[in-house]
């Protein structure tokens, strides 16, 4: 009897330890960085970093952004020589994490993943009342660019090629998949309707798996998805990708033409994610972080790992990255009346 009570006590303590450990794994110190000692630019840049760095991921553990981050960050750790912790802060389409990131100290010890177009549609949607925009961040580097694709079920004999899809959509109403209001799929559908006069109606679903199942089961006509999510089905012969919304063909699916090639003009669509920091970071620290990420991004091992997940690394830094994001913002403003904003 006594023995088993002892056993229970040990068990309970163990349970507490495990739960504390699990929380510790997914997040570490929430404490702000305290006083900003030694404000002088150069010395700060030389010392940096002296303690672990947090990277806020605004989506749940195990999701696409999270997995990508956990693949990349060990290579950055190697460059900077301090541990980097991933902190998942999901909610409000990513803005729970991004609002936290904006309010952090710009000392380089808190960075975050930002996702386009989600971060932009989040504040362009007037219902949301967001206080911040993309200009409240210092952009460090893009990590992944995942272009939109137009695909159909493999045995859907209404569609031989992309022309058949566009033509039929111009004549009648076709349903197309999206993963939520203001997602890249949604923007792509509205852009197609706007530019080509198609009548795609949007079926909003919870995520990449649901939209894939809906098209595979023949419940929705056209799959609007991303290269990263659709390539496996294309290769296994369950679906056929008919066009990619990119300026050039994508390496993972070299047989698929771009929409531009097929003669429909410069219609591009993608989701992208990269690293950002709260605004006004010390330039020396910013440079050091950017260099570390640049080296990690170009690591062959890292690029191969990402490719296995179906994701194309697209390292673009600083101002160039900022301009790309601003271009996305421009495109969305262009169709804002279609979004009802």
């Amino acid at each position, binding site marked *: 009897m006594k023995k*088993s*009570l002892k*056993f*229970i006590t040990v*068990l*309970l303590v163990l*349970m*507490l330890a*495990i*739960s*504390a450990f*699990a*929380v510790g794994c*997914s*997040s570490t110190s929430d404490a702000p960085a305290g006083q900003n000692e030694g404000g002088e630019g150069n010395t700060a840049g030389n010392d940096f970093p002296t303690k672990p760095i947090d990277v806020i991921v605004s989506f*749940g*553990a*195990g999701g696409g952004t*999270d*997995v990508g981050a*956990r693949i990349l960050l060990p290579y950055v750790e190697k460059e900077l020589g301090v541990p980097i912790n991933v902190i998942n*802060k999901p*909610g*409000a389409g990513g*803005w*729970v994490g991004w*609002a936290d990131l904006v309010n952090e100290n710009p000392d380089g010890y808190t960075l975050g993943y930002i996702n386009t177009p989600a971060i932009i549609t989040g504040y362009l949607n007037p*219902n949301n*009342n967001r206080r911040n925009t993309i200009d409240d961040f210092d952009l460090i580097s893009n990590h992944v660019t995942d272009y939109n694709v137009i695909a159909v079920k493999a045995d859907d004999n209404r569609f031989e090629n992309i022309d058949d899809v566009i033509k039929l959509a111009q004549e009648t*109403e076709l*349903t197309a998949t999206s993963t*939520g*209001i*203001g997602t890249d799929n949604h923007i792509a559908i509205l852009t197609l309707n706007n530019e080509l006069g198609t009548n795609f109606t*949007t*079926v*909003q*679903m*919870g995520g990449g*798996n*649901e939209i*894939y*199942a*809906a098209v*595979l*089961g*023949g*419940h*929705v006509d056209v799959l609007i998805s991303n290269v990263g999510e659709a390539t*496996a*089905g294309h*290769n*296994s*012969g*369950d679906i056929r990708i008919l066009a990619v919304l990119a300026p050039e063909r994508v390496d993972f699916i070299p047989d698929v033409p771009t929409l531009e090639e097929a003669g429909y003009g410069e219609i591009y669509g993608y989701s992208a994610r990269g690293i950002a920091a709260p605004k006004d970071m010390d330039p020396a620290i910013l440079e050091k972080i950017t260099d570390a990420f640049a080296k990690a991004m170009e690591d062959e091992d890292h690029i191969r*790992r990402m490719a*296995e*997940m*179906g994701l194309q690394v697209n390292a673009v830094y600083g101002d160039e990255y900022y301009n790309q994001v601003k271009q996305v913002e421009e495109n969305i403003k262009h169709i804002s009346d279609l979004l*009802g904003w």
Partner: protein
Amino acid sequence: MVGFEIVQMFFTVQTIMALLVGTIGGMFIGALPGLSATMAIALLIPVTFGMEPVAGLVMLSAIYTSAVFGGSISAILLHTPGTPASAATALDGYALTKQGKGLKAIGISTISSMIGGTISALALLFLAPPLSLVSLRFNAPEYFLIAIFGLTIIGSLAGDSLVKGLASGAFGLLIGLIGMDLMYGYPRFTYGFMTLESGIALVPAMIGLFSISQVLIQSEKIAKLKGKKEEKIIDVNSLEGTVLPSWKEFKSIVPTMIRSSAIGVLVGILPGAGGDIGSWVSYNEAKRFSKEPEKFGKGSIEGIAASESANNAVTGGTLIPLLTLGIPGSAAAAVLLGGLLIQGLVPGHALFSDYAGITYAVIFGFLIANILMGITGLLIAKHIVKVSTIPIGILSALIVVLSIVGSYAINNSVMDIYVMATFGVIGYFMRKTGFHPAPVVLAMILGPLAESSFKQSVVMAKGNLMTYFFGRPISIVLIVLTILALFAPLMMNYAQKKIQKNNTAKN
């Protein structure tokens, strides 16, 4: 030949170690409120980077199934479901614990989980391709009808009063409305709180409604005693029963376990529905088919068997569309997909041809994990049931700490702790006034599913909604089932009264 290859791949030191770690670790994590199977898998995926594919994937799938089982242990002993999938288990399991029959409850739960998991593993092994085609036949219209069918349970779910059950359900539906609307992107009832845009998170609300309310009720009892006696859930000397059910009891739950496992596998293969829905639907069907429906909620072993065999059957079910089509059947399976890809295994036909060796070794490992989980559960049951003899003053404090940690851990959000505390107080007053929290949880799960799948159906129908619903065979079956579920009891009542009347008239 292939068989030999599989055995060879499976029986390596690394794989066996991974299996043990996964099974036992999963049980612990599952037992802790808030720490779900999904999170356990997500955190361990980086660990599998450096492992052999078979070992890594066996570990992840073992964690998945045993975490779902682990959730039932705390549900039974502490009225604190470790995962949403074991909320239904708490109803009868805790009732048995209070009667001193916690050991038997854990025994039933262990055996049912093992059988449910094993049946789903066998389905995965032999029926994966045809079942994956079934899963594709279900979409938004069917999900809507499944949700409606599930909601027909609400009135009879728990408690004595139909009206109170319906009121609790309506409250749950209302809570389910909070957050961003999927179709139009409009924030509803968020009052400017950004964290509310994703809705009230289910797990913290459930922890509040079930476990915090329980803690409050017991603290009240202690306060009334004013330290005269040490209050426990049950006295050591009142513990009775054996971990293994009698042959008669076992025979009586066999039909329930088989039916619930079938429901579990079916719900598992649907990408839009997971373990929580599977266990509730099975629980209700068990009640409908039971010879003693009045015992449900008061310590029915059939109730435990139904919910537990179903939620473990869901685990194998979710892996079927994952492996064959690359469509995960649940959130945990979606995380597992990442684990597969990192090992260079792309779901699809190739898994069953080019990589058949690895795939079948992993499925075999999953099967063994379920059996190992059952054996471990039966061995530790006798010790673990003593948790219910710990003084409530100590136990309550522990439960509160675990609940807070668990609620925070889901999204690293302090808001979720407030949600848990608020729902704890709501749950306390509900139970004091005779409302049961179970319908609230059920409605919170099914309400949003019904809403979004109905809106999706409207768009998919391209105009005529009625013809769309009635043009789909599975839809028609579900509509008929729902009508039967709603009106059969009334008709039977009526018929019975008529017969009685006739009999009395004759006499």
